[in-house]
């Protein structure tokens, strides 16, 4: 079985590409670990035209149901680990199986950046958190650290203000990057201390997190902080290593595309946050998915 198109990723870009491809009657397979990624954590979306307000999970649920109205094959719960091309046919491999197609759209989005330090994985869910809106209430009257002094990190600190006794915000660069309005709110609380120009080296504990070690980046001096929670908020990253043989990646690991979503390999397209387009918005990702599916349609007519 050779598909016309395999779509990798089930977020706004991938699902929209799926709807467009199915309407063009392309024999399409969509492979995704899950429906939606970053979008699932948005509690309210106010800029999806036609819907005044909807939750991220609500919107992705609607999109998925919409796509399922069409004839499209779905492989959910699987992660793609490799793509190769031979004699004009792409082989897309997930953990279990290989699939073949004449074209591929990569729309696997971005995932939260990790620190890659000891303790980070071991204590995930045991004091290491990435969802402050979910888990902040678990840290009532406790001391916690937030890693990342941007808007997202300081936003996490704001979620924690209501509960935690003390919040340390640790920023790698020399200055906090969050908007002044957010910083004011944190500073006024009297509960927040910010450390800049520091690198977190280790998260420690027994069964649950008990502390962390950070290093002053100028002096190299290491200090231990006793905290029960570590909220990591150091941005998002593109993870396109599975396609590296066939695409050009920019400095931050995004797939380089042209204005019609072509990568450097004919027949291989990318759409949404995994690509090097500048703005990352749901409506833009959906539009990019549509563009990629239309570009695929044109490509298949010519090839």
């Amino acid at each position: 079985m050779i598909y016309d198109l395999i779509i990798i990723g089930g977020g706004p870009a991938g699902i929209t590409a799926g709807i467009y491809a199915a309407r063009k009657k392309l024999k399409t397979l969509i492979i995704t670990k899950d429906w939606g990624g970053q979008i699932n954590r948005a509690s309210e979306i106010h800029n999806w035209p036609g819907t005044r307000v909807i939750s991220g999970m609500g919107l992705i649920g609607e999109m998925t149901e919409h796509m399922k109205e069409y004839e499209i094959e779905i492989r959910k719960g699987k992660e793609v680990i490799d793509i190769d091309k031979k004699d004009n046919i792409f082989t897309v491999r997930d953990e279990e199986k290989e699939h073949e197609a004449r074209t591929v759209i990569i729309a696997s989005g971005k995932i939260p950046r990790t620190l890659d330090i000891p303790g980070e994985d071991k204590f995930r869910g045991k004091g290491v958190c990435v969802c402050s809106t979910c888990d902040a209430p678990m840290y009532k009257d406790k001391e916690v650290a937030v890693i990342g002094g941007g808007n997202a990190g300081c936003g996490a600190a704001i979620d924690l203000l209501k509960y935690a006794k003390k919040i340390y915000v640790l920023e790698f660069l020399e200055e906090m990057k969050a908007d002044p309005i957010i910083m004011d709110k944190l500073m006024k609380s009297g509960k927040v201390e910010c450390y800049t120009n520091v690198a977190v080296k280790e998260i420690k504990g027994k069964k649950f997190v008990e502390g962390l070690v950070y290093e002053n980046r100028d002096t190299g001096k290491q200090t231990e902080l006793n905290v029960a929670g570590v909220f990591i908020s150091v941005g998002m990253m593109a993870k396109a290593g599975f396609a590296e043989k066939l695409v050009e990646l920019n400095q931050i690991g995004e797939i380089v595309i042209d204005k019609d979503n072509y990568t450097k390999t004919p027949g291989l397209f990318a759409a949404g946050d995994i690509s090097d387009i500048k703005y990352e918005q749901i409506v833009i990702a959906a539009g990019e998915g549509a563009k990629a599916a239309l570009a695929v349609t044109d490509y298949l007519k010519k090839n």
Partner: protein
Amino acid sequence: MVKVYSTPSCPYCVTLKNFLKEHKIQFEDIDVSQNEIAQKEMIDKSGQMGVPVIDIDGQIVVGFDQERIKQILKITE
């Protein structure tokens, strides 16, 4: 007996509860943000501190793992 340990602001919790309602599964909703005893109970049961946690007759699932929850509750679509 189905128990859901959740916090009000957590999007995954809201989705989990809506999912159970859609499938007409009765459950006890426990807001751990207001209840430290329940918090401790949830941590003891699941060995971790993230919400949501669902307890289905003693079987514990962490997070909104739709496939596993469907399997345990024998929901077929």
